[in-house]
């Protein structure tokens, strides 16, 4: 498995040069991206230049960091200076940011090797990657199935091992859901733990950047690197806890793992069985399983869509064809120019969410929808606080089903929204959650489970996730694609 520690060992013991390694990843992207469509922009020149820098350091006997020379990718809504960043929308085609997102500033200073930018649902609005202007990324376990979304490209690339790890963003499940669909690990950190500076905004009170990786250990390594306080993000707190990597192997004996009944309602049998089997693994490791009710959860999904769309309608007001991106060719006056630019530049799902957001914020509807949703958000936060008095972490499915076949999401928006039912509560309450592979269904498609913790308890949820990977490593599988290490 092409994990970060494996790559670090290969580089430091000189089993291969960093340039050779980068080239083998680039070769595999060339071979497989036609079918997977994970990458929307391959940055081969930048990757090789960074790899050569790392090789020089190794040759001169300098020690290198864990993430140094590791081939990786970024979701295409994370700003990269001088490298096109489109959010997979027509409206941002050609846009080259003049600054780096803080997370990329950190990783590029560590000499991580950026292979390219990866596919996503347009402006991160979707659960299958199919709203992308560049068409969806496919699932490495079966390319007739979607990779999930919105960070589908990162998950497809990491699942196919055409990147060792990647950074995605999670507004309502966009890291955890595709990680679950592609049989890998996805961590949505606590709101405020990782800087959002340079992340192109969808819904600012919910958005959070986090790692998508092949193993829990890798998620801890990447999280430790990126979870720094940043004065450029006014919602940044940084992670003040100890290194999550150091505590991965802590004993979980006596730990209380909670299962909320509502998380299992309407979940497909194969997914439910896999999650309950994982609970048994935890029991065998000495943890105590506690069951309880979390009735506030049933309002999480509509609350999420109201708040997310309201914030999106405001955030996406900036796309007017004047300062960056696409501009319509023929128009008659400023208002006409802005309307045409936006109508031609945004896809259907983005328009639908802007309209819904504007509707719930407009006079006459504000109290019934937006205000009510904000009140219920408070109720959900309180419900989680109370739940964490009964248990240390919560175990839940990540998605009610496994990756569905392509084309299905496009036909029914509401049904697609329902795929987010298990992931959105975490964003509403600002909590951390990690999705971990916990088995396969009869068709060989991966199933994911989610471990949810209190705010800033990443060390604990990664510890719980790591213990599972140690005990049930068979659920972490390589696919036929990509670099074999």
């Amino acid at each position, binding site marked *: 498995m092409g994990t970060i520690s494996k790559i670090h060992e290969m580089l430091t013991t000189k089993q291969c040069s960093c340039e050779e390694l980068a080239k083998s990843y680039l070769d595999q992207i060339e071979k497989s991206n036609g079918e997977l469509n994970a990458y929307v922009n391959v940055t081969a020149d930048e990757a090789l230049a960074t790899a050569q820098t790392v090789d020089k350091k190794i040759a001169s006997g300098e020690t290198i960091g864990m993430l140094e020379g590791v081939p990786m990718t970024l979701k295409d809504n994370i700003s990269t200076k001088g490298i096109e960043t489109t959010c997979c929308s027509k409206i941002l085609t*050609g*846009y*080259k940011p*003049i*600054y780096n997102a803080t997370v990329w500033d950190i990783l590029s200073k560590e000499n991580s090797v950026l292979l390219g930018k990866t596919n996503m649902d347009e402006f991160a609005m979707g659960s299958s990657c199919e709203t992308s202007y560049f068409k969806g990324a496919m699932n490495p376990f079966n390319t007739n199935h979607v990779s999930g979304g919105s960070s589908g490209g990162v998950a497809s690339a990491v699942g196919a091992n055409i990147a060792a790890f990647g950074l995605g963003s999670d507004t309502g499940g966009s890291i955890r859901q595709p990680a679950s669909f592609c049989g890998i690990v996805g961590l949505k950190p606590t*709101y*405020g733990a990782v800087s959002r500076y340079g992340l192109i905004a969808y819904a600012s*009170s919910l958005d959070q950047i986090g790692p998508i990786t092949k193993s829990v250990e890798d998620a801890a390594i990447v999280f430790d690197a990126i979870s720094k306080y940043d*004065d450029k993000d*006014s*919602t940044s*707190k940084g992670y003040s806890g100890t290194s999550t990597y150091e505590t991965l192997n802590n004993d979980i004996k006596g730990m209380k793992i909670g299962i909320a009944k509502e998380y299992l309602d309407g979940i497909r049998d194969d997914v439910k069985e896999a999650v309950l089997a994982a609970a048994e693994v935890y029991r065998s490791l000495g943890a105590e399983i506690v069951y309880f009710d979390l009735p506030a959860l049933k*309002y999480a999904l*509509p609350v999420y*869509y*109201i708040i997310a769309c309201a914030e999106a309608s405001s955030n996406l007001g900036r796309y*007017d064809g*004047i*300062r*960056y*991106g*696409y*501009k319509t060719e023929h128009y008659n*006056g*400023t*208002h006409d*120019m*802005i*309307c*045409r630019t*936006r*109508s031609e530049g*945004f896809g259907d799902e983005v*328009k*639908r969410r*802007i*309209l*819904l957001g*504007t*509707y*719930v914020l*407009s006079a*006459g*509807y504000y109290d*019934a*929808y937006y205000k*009510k*949703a904000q*009140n*219920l958000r*408070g*109720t959900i*936060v*309180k419900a989680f606080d109370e739940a964490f008095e009964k248990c240390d972490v919560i175990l839940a499915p990540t998605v009610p089903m496994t990756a569905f076949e392509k084309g299905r999401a496009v036909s029914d*928006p*509401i049904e697609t*929204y329902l795929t987010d039912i298990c992931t959105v509560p975490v964003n509403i309450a*600002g909590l951390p959650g990690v999705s971990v592979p916990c088995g396969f269904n009869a068709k060989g498609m991966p199933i994911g489970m989610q471990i949810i913790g209190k*705010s*800033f308890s990443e060390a604990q949820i990664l510890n719980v996730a790591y213990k599972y990977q140690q005990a049930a490593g068979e659920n972490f599988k390589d696919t036929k694609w990509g670099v074999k290490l």
Partner: protein
Amino acid sequence: MTCPVLFERLVSMVTREDVENIALLSKLFVPEEELDGLTKSMQEIIDFADTINNAPSADDSFDNINNLSNVFREDEVIPSYSNEEILSNAPEQAEDHFLVRNRE
């Protein structure tokens, strides 16, 4: 006698005119042939969003996540980007400025 349920449904009825009005506020053009389909799909989503009105009325306020509060700093002038950099992504520019519309 008033019927609260009926009242809620009336509040949530999405009409073609609503969609046209919201589109105008959102600075989006909706072609005539897409208006009916979009009204229907908006109605479905609003019906779904309406389920929150079945929730017991809660007075739980929500004003921030994880006790985040406003961040202030002294208003100091620090180096920033050059005009050239800022304008580098503009679809059109004139005389070191963004061009909003072509001159008549």
